[in-house]
């Protein structure tokens, strides 16, 4: 199952439509067909070819990530962290402020360094997303971290709290 999440704050109809169209065009093709489940948020576009919910409780949400072969998301840090914690590769596609998908373009700016993270694959266009989807069996999750960056942050906080 491919799990798609648009986040909680802004609609991201473009991502929903990309996936809906991808499923529709692959329906007859067994090699590429795979169930898709989408968390839509507040968008207007309702998928015709996949199951979906607007919002999910945290437990259901995490369960869907865990069950998925690939997690597709807006370029939000929360989902990148969750994908790694659950051992699932993630494809992120950035929101664009000019399309009303966010209040600024920090997701676009973030895409370059996100691509450096293990287990994170980035796409800024429909073609790039479809390209990654077609080779999704080759995508690998990031290794669980050993908190090499988190530990010094925690040690510092413990010293000042």
């Amino acid at each position, binding site marked *: 199952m491919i799990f798609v999440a648009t986040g909680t704050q802004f609609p991201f109809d473009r991502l929903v439509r990309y996936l809906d169209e991808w499923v529709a065009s692959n329906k007859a093709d067994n090699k590429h067909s795979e169930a898709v489940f989408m968390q839509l948020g507040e968008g207007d576009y309702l998928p015709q070819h996949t199951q979906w919910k607007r919002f999910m409780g945290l437990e259901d949400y995490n369960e869907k990530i865990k069950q998925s072969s690939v997690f597709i998301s807006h370029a939000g840090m*929360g989902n990148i962290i969750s994908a790694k914690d659950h051992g699932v590769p993630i494809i992120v596609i950035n929101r664009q402020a000019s399309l009303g998908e966010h209040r600024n373009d920090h997701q676009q700016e973030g895409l370059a360094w996100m691509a450096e993270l293990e287990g994170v694959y980035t796409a800024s266009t429909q073609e790039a997303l479809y390209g990654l989807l077609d080779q999704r069996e080759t995508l690998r999750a990031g290794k669980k971290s050993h908190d090499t*960056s*988190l530990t010094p942050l925690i040690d510092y906080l*413990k010293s000042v709290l």
Partner: protein
Amino acid sequence: MWKKGKVLAVSSPGGHWVQLNKIGNKLEDQFLIIYASPRGQYKVAQQGERVVHNIMDASADSKIKLLPLALQLFWLILKERPATIMSTGAAPGVIAILLGKILGIKTIWIDSIANVQRLSRSGRMIQAYADIVLTQWPNLSDGEKILHKGSVL
């Protein structure tokens, strides 16, 4: 007046909340962390020993909600009496830290890892008021006011 070892951890939902949890989870062995975040349908959720207070969902784009959110946070701070207020962002954290400043509580701002090129908008707003401002990116530290001590990744 403020309870030693007690931390009020505030954030908006989504990525800020995921980061706040990554940090809070590692502090819970030594500190009592009380969480506050907009939780939608949940009210005060008890997750094991953990307390999560539901607060209003407001952002800088919904200014009309900021005042009731401030009253809600003010009440929560008086009730919980934390020694420290900590936030990863965004608007609820800004308000909580301003209230902490007024009340003489130690405040810590941990800027979201999503902001790579400069501090988040809320981080820039709050940096003059928070006692400690941390960035998760070495290049955004100025070595004085904005410190880099590590990251959640």
